């Protein structure tokens, strides 16, 4: 049996409080041990296990209590009664009352299940992504180290900087590098692509993770020339190798080189950056030669300092604070910069906890959504409190009878509160199930979240839901309980008494005002996010995304070592694809828009001296083949694109976009001008001017861009763009087959339409807007139900007044108008408070908005009108019913 965290057992021990003390004294230890065994054996996710335990414990615990006490007398608690016996009595009474009013109970339970369900679902996600610590040894000591450019932006780390840090930093017990790239797997089934991580030897030491089987990397195994070894995650071992116990020592072929499996990671291991399928030594990376500046160590050339592409992880020494480690890193990196002038001038470094880096993009959206569902829950509580208050009036007689028979005020309040709690817990149990279903739906809908694989219910989610249920039970139960227990016996026992009605009516109106205000806050938030999303997807991209098929491939370097060879293969592939039926034009690029790829390079006019770091214009630099602009439908504004003449040995031809041209040569023609770029020998001649495009996603927007010719700077990695005559994906198979006629072993991936890539560029915004809209609509419906409830209750109570008015000649319309006028006052107050609330809370979502101001008046007005109309319609239904009643019949009934 694997040792389970005692968290589950301590939750269970709390649950065991349901049993009488004598039973616990005798069996608690045995029960806990049995629970531990069953918990360990229960299949994940353990939702049903926990439900069974929860329901079973409550049921048997109460049964045991009742059996232990015999039948206690209802109503009065005797001096000798323990709290638990009184509670058991209250519970039995509560169940009896609830059973006698099934419609009321069902409404309350359903409302609470909705509120608690959405809250529980959101908390399940927040818990797994933001709260649960990473499964490493003392995870708070694991940090990431970044270089920081002179303008304060963080960057990845160069190999020389990393080696310097490793030699000098004393506040870190270990440092390791990480880089990830796809690797071609052959020899196990069909040729496939694996997501591989290239890490230095100390990587698992930094994380504090030991393999389940075998060992981690040994010192020296990450150096060039060392024997190929690999450590595999648990999932890969089970899925691809059928949990083969003899896996250790087996050799797999990655990128045409052999790697011996030396370790299998434990099942609990989690790396939140990427779904990594194999861990390989750093030196096995195809990019390793680039990192070292194509020189073998020792003695890295100065250019290696410019290649900042490593992710660096570190473990801080025990007892050293993050601040102290950060201060030392800054000192060491500034010293390093001083010792290597030019390439590192002005650069510094900083650290950030690994967990916060891993979740930084989703933290605020998740917090906003958690806030939103909390508001929905509050609205649900207000609704239920309203219902309970209404019922309290109806039950006043019942309470008065019990008070007359000797029940004290406290006993009556406890009784009413117990009913609320039972209803809330029932709602909570349903909510837990609903929450689990909603979580599944959310995961199916959502773009991949960091740590998404670990999202699921756990004891904390269960405890959270239980606490939320109890708190909401108190929240919607406490005011009605206090009101309900204050019984003026004589008045209540008299027929038709209405003395407490006025007070209750005001309280209920106040609850509706609160519901409307909270709903408006949610509606405005959803409206703003939806508008922001609309603005975003309407942005002019500068290219036509529809009708383009894209895919990526990487030529194996050990098959095509030299640049001319590589270009020759690319060229032949392109020729073949261009001839596929249904393909209009095909081109290659080192990076395409919305792919996440692309190089940022500082450039300057060739006639100027190289500017200081930070002062240069940084462009998005991409190499493309001649047909790229035609295939993407990017306008060529002047000059030409790449041509056959632009070869490896001819002058570098470059194209610039309008933004770069305007910045470099404002008011002049750019054609024929010369540019230089960091890390590129020689200068480029501008041969063409092209339109601006959005490259790095909607938020990054337009920026200066530089295009070089693929033939002049060939590389192994390429993205193909092919404009098709029909549906892009319909040509995918034919394009792949065309590539395979050149090399049947060449894997391709990310085969998708450009339109889908652009659409997923707004995934996060779309998800946030969708969920927020769902929460807001739920709030709208609940608030409308609240208005409906209050109005229909009030017109029922006032049936006599309405009848008298109508008998005296008031028209139906005037009755309707009277009710609506009264409702309008409540709605106006709720909306005003809601507008104030939205303005106060708009700051929270300001960071999530794209070209929409958080106090956008249009959005506030439109959502306010929607809410007002919904509220008035909800009020008009019962009002119309009252107005159409036969006044004579109503009066006769009295």
């Amino acid at each position: 049996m694997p040792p389970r965290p005692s968290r589950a057992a301590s939750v269970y021990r709390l649950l065991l409080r349901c049993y009488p003390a004598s039973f616990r004294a005798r069996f608690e230890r045995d029960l806990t041990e049995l629970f531990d065994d069953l918990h360990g054996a229960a299949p994940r996710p353990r939702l049903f296990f926990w439900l069974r335990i929860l329901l079973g414990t409550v049921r048997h615990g109460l049964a045991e209590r009742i059996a232990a006490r015999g039948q206690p007398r209802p109503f009065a608690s005797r001096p000798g009664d323990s709290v638990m016996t009184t509670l058991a009595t209250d519970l039995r009474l509560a169940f009896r009352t609830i059973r006698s009013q099934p419609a009321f109970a069902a409404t309350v339970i359903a409302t609470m299940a909705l509120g608690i369900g959405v809250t529980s679902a959101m908390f399940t996600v927040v818990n797994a992504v933001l709260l649960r610590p990473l499964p490493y040894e003392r995870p708070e000591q694991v940090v990431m180290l970044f270089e920081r450019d002179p303008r304060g932006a963080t960057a990845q780390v160069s190999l020389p900087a990393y080696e310097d840090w490793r030699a000098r930093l004393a506040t870190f017990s270990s440092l390791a590098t990480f880089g990830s790239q796809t690797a071609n797997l052959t020899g196990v089934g069909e040729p496939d692509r694996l997501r591989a991580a290239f890490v230095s030897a100390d990587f698992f030491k930094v994380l504090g993770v030991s393999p389940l089987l075998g060992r981690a990397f040994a010192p020296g195994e990450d150096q060039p020339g060392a024997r190929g070894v690999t450590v595999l995650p648990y999932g890969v071992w089970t899925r691809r190798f059928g949990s083969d116990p003899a896996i250790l020592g087996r050799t797999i072929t990655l990128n045409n080189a052999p790697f011996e499996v030396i370790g299998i990671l434990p099942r609990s291991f989690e790396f939140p950056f990427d779904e990594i399928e194999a861990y390989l030594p750093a030196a096995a990376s195809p990019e390793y030669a680039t990192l070292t500046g194509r020189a073998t160590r020792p003695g890295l050339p100065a250019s290696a300092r410019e290649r900042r592409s490593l992710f660096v992880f570190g473990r801080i020494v025990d007892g050293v604070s993050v601040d102290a480690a950060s201060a030392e890193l800054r000192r060491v990196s500034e010293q390093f910069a001083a010792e290597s002038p030019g390439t590192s001038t002005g650069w510094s470094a900083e650290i950030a906890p690994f967990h916060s880096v891993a979740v930084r993009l989703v933290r605020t959206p998740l917090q906003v959504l958690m806030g939103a569902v909390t508001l929905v829950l509050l609205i649900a509580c207000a609704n239920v409190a309203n219902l309970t208050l209404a019922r309290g009036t109806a039950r006043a007689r019942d309470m008065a009878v019990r008070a007359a028979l000797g029940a004290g005020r406290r006993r009556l309040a406890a009784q009413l509160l117990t009913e609320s709690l039972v209803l809330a817990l029932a709602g909570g149990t349903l909510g837990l199930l609903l929450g689990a279903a909603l979580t599944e739906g959310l995961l199916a809908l959502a773009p991949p979240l960091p740590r998404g694989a670990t999202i699921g219910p756990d004891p904390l989610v269960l405890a959270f839901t239980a606490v939320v249920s109890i708190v909401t039970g108190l929240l919607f139960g406490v005011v009605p309980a206090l009101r309900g227990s204050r019984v003026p016996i004589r008045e209540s026992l008299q027929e038709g008494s209405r003395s407490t009605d006025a007070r209750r009516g005001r309280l209920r109106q106040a609850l509706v005002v609160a519901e409307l205000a909270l709903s408006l806050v949610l509606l405005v938030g959803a409206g703003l996010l939806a508008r922001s999303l609309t603005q975003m997807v309407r942005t002019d991209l500068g290219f036509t995304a529809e009708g383009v098929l894209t895919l990526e491939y990487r030529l194996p370097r050990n098959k095509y070592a030299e640049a001319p060879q590589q270009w020759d293969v690319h060229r032949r592939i392109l020729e073949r694809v261009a001839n596929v039926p249904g393909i209009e034009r095909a081109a290659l690029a080192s990076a395409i828009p919305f792919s996440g790829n692309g190089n940022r390079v500082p450039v300057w006019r060739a006639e100027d001296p190289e500017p200081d770091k930070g002062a240069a214009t940084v462009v998005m630099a991409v190499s493309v083949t001649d047909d790229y602009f035609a295939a993407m439908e990017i306008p060529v504004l002047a000059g030409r694109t790449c041509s056959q003449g632009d070869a490896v040995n001819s002058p570098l031809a470059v194209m610039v976009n309008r933004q770069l041209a305007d910045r470099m040569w404002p008011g002049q023609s750019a054609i024929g001008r010369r540019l230089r770029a960091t890390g590129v020998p020689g200068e480029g001649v501008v041969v063409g001017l092209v339109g601006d495009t959005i490259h790095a996603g909607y938020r990054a927007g337009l920026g200066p861009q530089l295009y070089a010719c693929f033939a002049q700077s060939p590389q192994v990695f390429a993205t193909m763009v092919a404009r098709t005559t029909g549906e892009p994906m319909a040509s995918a198979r034919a394009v792949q087959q065309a590539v395979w006629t050149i090399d049947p072993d060449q894997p391709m991936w990310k085969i998708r339409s450009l339109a889908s890539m652009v659409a997923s560029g707004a995934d996060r915004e779309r998800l946030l807007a969708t969920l927020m809209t769902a929460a807001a609509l739920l709030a709208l419906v609940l608030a409308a139900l609240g208005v409906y409830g209050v109005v229909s209750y009030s017109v029922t109570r006032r049936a006599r007044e309405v009848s008298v008015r109508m008998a005296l000649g008031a028209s139906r319309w005037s009755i309707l108008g009277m009710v609506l006028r009264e409702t309008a006052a409540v709605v106006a107050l709720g909306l005003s408070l809601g507008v104030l609330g939205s303005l106060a809370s708009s700051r929270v979502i300001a960071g999530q908005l794209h070209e929409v101001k958080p106090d956008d008046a249009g959005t506030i007005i439109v959502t306010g009108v929607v809410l007002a109309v919904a509220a008035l319609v909800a009020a008009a239904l019962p009002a119309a019913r009252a107005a159409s009643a036969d006044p004579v019949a109503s009066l006769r009934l009295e």
Partner: protein
Amino acid sequence: MASTRHAVERLLPLRPVVFQVLLSLLDAEMHGYALVQDIARRTAAGIELEPGNLYRHLKFMLDAGLIEESERRPVAGRDDERRRYYRITTLGRSAASEEARRLEGVLADARARLARSQGTR
């Protein structure tokens, strides 16, 4: 002997869980988890016991004298020696066999009735 018979008759019919626990303990002394697993296996997942449910029945069986706690501990190292083991008493054995006989009667009666009802159709 007569008093045992009287005691057994007072306990019949046995609750299904009680009967199953007795059957499990006929061959071996067991702790709680072993009982849960054994019963789940024998009754082909028909009875899945929640911990509280099992121990409420064990409490009843201990109080009724159908089972008792075992003094013996398993071989060191083979299992957790802190666990409590239960064994069946003489009364428990008689109760189990009486219940089995009773169930046989029930079954025979049911079969006969079913056969008759098929015949008359």
